[in-house]
């Protein structure tokens, strides 16, 4: 382990399947990763690559049925969340792990005040009195940059703008001083300037509070700005994982390479993002026995059809610790390092 520190979160061999009427959907396939204290892990991948399902599986937030976690372990501070009793798990949710969801417009309960929705978690996890919880809620709203916080406690979600609601969601997720904050595309539903504000806010909060963050996004540009390490997902699998500079400088997986090419040079050309990769995302109807990216891959060869590649180390370090990739193709060594975007 780097620095010899134990990771706050360690996920091994996670497998999540949806049982639907038309058959099984293997949404998450043998996903492993870890998260160090205070680290920001960026997770990228196109729509349907299993980012959300992976993160929701960690806290068992998916409705079962149809979701079923088939295998794996999710160790938070060494304790397996997948084996935990329901009561204990609820102490983790909103306590040790905070979650911010994609769509701030629908993620808050429309009939309760924002104050109630924040204090509810505080009272449960920290056992605060009503008054103490309200005081803390005011602090939290101030922390996430909502002006006139005490008055806003009594406001309902519809009285906030999208950006403000996402700030409220972040306040809720941070309420009980979590060790881990999972942010599932927290800015996708917001317009560009608000996105930038939320990003700034998270950077600032991270510096101030020092929790570990998992940041899910479509946008490699965002990742370059905030992440320490990046995990690229495709077809429910981790296809590449590396420290952020390394990934941008020396991408190994054809998918990652294609992704990097799609980043607009000048931020603002948002249309040009991921859609330019030719082909369709894979059907996840069977446990993959071949590389999920093969249909769209320019380097495909026979082995790609026969065998789903395992993650292998690129830089000689243990898989997961340095730079690793799940690909049969060997990328040529980069000519020079100055091509890095980061």
């Amino acid at each position, binding site marked *: 382990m780097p620095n010899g520190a134990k990771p706050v979160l360690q996920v091994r061999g996670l497998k999540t399947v949806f049982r639907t009427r038309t058959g099984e959907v293997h949404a998450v396939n043998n996903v492993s990763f870890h998260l160090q204290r205070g680290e920001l892990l960026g997770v990228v991948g196109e729509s349907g690559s299993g980012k959300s399902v992976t993160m929701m599986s960690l806290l068992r937030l998916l409705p079962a049925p149809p979701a079923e976690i088939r295998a794996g372990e999710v160790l938070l501070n060494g304790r397996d969340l997948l084996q935990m009793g329901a009561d204990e798990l609820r102490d983790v949710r909103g306590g040790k792990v905070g*979650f911010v*969801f994609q769509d701030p417009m*629908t993620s808050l309960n*429309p*009939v*309760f005040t924002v104050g109630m929705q924040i204090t509810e978690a505080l009272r449960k996890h920290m056992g605060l009195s009503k008054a103490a919880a309200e005081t803390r809620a005011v602090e939290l709203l101030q922390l996430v940059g909502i002006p006139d916080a005490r008055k806003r406690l009594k406001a309902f979600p*519809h009285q906030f703008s999208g950006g403000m609601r996402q700030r409220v969601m972040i306040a809720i997720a941070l309420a009980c001083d979590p060790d881990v904050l999972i942010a599932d595309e927290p800015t996708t539903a917001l317009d560009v300037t608000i996105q930038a504000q939320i990003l700034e806010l998270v950077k600032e909060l991270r510096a101030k509070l020092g929790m570990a963050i998992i940041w899910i996004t479509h946008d490699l540009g965002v990742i370059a700005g905030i992440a320490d390490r990046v995990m690229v997902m495709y077809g429910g699998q981790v296809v590449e994982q590396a420290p952020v500079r390394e990934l941008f400088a020396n991408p190994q997986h054809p998918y990652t390479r294609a992704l990097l090419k799609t980043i607009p040079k000048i931020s603002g050309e948002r249309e040009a993002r991921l859609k330019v990769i030719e082909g369709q995302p894979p059907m996840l109807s069977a446990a993959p026995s071949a590389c999920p990216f093969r249909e769209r891959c320019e380097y495909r060869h026979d082995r790609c059809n026969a065998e789903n590649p395992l993650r292998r180390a690129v830089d000689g370090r243990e898989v997961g610790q340095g730079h690793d990739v799940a690909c049969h193709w060997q990328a040529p060594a980069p000519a020079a390092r100055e091509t890095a975007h980061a």
Partner: protein
Amino acid sequence: MLTYVLRRLFIAIPTLLLISVVIFFLVDLAPGSPASEIPLTVPPEVRAKILESLGVNAPFHVRYLLWLKQFFWVEPMYAIDYLFGTDYAQGAQRIISYSSRSPVFNIIIERLPQTLTVIGTAYAVAILIALPIGIYSAYRQYSWVDQLGTFVSMVGYSVPTFFTGVVLIVIFAVKLQWFPSIYDTTLRITDWGSLWKQIHQMILPVAVLGLYNAAEISRYTRSSMLENLSQDYVRTARAKGMSERVVVLKHVARNSMIPVVTIIALGLPGVFGGAIVTEQVFKINGIGAALIGAIHANDLPMVQTITFITAILIVTFNLIADILYGVLDPRIRYD
């Protein structure tokens, strides 16, 4: 909110006036004459006199205006006099039933308790049963409770009450003899024994009507719960570590109840109108039975008055439902 309510009340006045004209007109068009209720042995001159005294032969608009005045002016006076022992009415002509020759409102007051106890209890029982069933069957969709609930609701909602009523009577009153088949309206509750008797005789009609109402309300509750259970905020509540109890009974139910409360409020005027069929089947001497009797007897004032009171209640409860909606849903602001 207040201005909204006032505005709505203001709009309600022309609406109700229009309804009253239409009711009056339609009832008036109906074939048959109150004269047919007068025994044939009565000599023609006397018969004409009686009809005259009832005001039957006056032109339509005269009768309508008279009725309007009686309904909105004279009858409230009598009510005030009755309550406070005053004498504002000063013997003014009340709305008189053609067939019984007594004031229509007296008959209604007399019949109302029967209707309210039986139909009202049935409605209350229906709500108490329907809400938990609706909530649970949505939360455990496709469980056996849900399947059973769906089946019973389908039956309860699609089989007419005259059929369920008769079936229950045949099984529980005739075959098993557990309950009486006819409701005794003269029963007075004086002690535990008579109270028990009253409850006993209410069980079958309450079951018939309760099943019907519960079917509707539980379906509404279930679909409203289902709709809300799949909302994002539910996942947020779970991600905050809230217990299933809090998630379902607080977060989801609070949202789901908004349309359900409206439906319940809109159903309340029906309690006054009585369940005509159920009252008929169990021979309950309530408002519904009075209305049916009046229709058979061409008792126009009675029919008009009961129908119009029902119309007033419907308009009122529509307003109440809208206000409740605004109270329960913070996104709605009336102004």
